[in-house]
């Protein structure tokens, strides 16, 4: 029984990783490629690690396997966010079929400034508080 569960987890993890690689090869621009790799690959690794925990079934190994899962689930979104942000600022082109780019009307790539369109003189002025460090 446990062999069957292990085999299913291993195979589905491998298939998810293969899907992530197909996505990174076939999708048209940087953000869609990241959408393929971060989610599918993290799920694939998590399934493989659950299979490892089932295989050994010792406290130390299970703890380490779940540590890997938690670490990957915590770092994959952070890394994807950082790379996507850097890619947008560097000016990687979006796919020609992109429907909406909400950053484009508000972001000035020359001055690297972001505006909401709601600024006034009053709320742009600095109002120091008493517990400010300087």
């Amino acid at each position, binding site marked *: 029984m446990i*062999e069957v569960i*292990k*085999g299913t987890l*291993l*195979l589905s*993890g*491998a*298939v998810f*990783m*293969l899907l*992530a*690689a*197909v996505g*990174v*090869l076939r999708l048209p621009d*940087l953000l869609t*490629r*990241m959408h393929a*790799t971060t989610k599918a*690959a*993290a799920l*694939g*690794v998590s399934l*493989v*690690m659950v*299979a*490892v925990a089932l*295989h*050994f079934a*010792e406290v*130390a*190994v299970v703890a*380490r*396997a779940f*540590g*890997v899962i938690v*670490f*990957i689930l915590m*770092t*994959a979104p*952070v*890394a994807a966010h*950082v*790379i996507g*942000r*850097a*890619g947008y*600022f*560097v000016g*990687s082109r979006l796919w020609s079929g992109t429907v909406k780019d909400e950053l484009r009307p508000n972001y000035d790539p020359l001055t690297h400034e972001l505006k909401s369109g709601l600024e006034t003189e009053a709320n742009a002025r600095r109002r120091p508080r008493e517990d400010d460090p300087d």
Partner: protein
Amino acid sequence: MDAVIKLSLALMGLALCLAFVRLIKGPSLPDRVVALELFSTLIVGIIGVISIHTDVASFLDVTIVMALMAFLAAIGFARFLERGGPRDD
């Protein structure tokens, strides 16, 4: 079980090849960074499968180090890109 392990290793190897194609082709540096990150995730999976195959649990320590290094490399690359270092895509 042996066949399942061989099949999943083959699938992950194929995935590594596909990611490598993107690493070679990738039109810009961020695309290559994404492919490299996928590499490290695939290697973590492969090491997990191999630790089942060989029955050596110590390989899991290697996966932890691998995931940590991939995260730090992604952060470093992103900082490099945003600071605008010299690039030759």
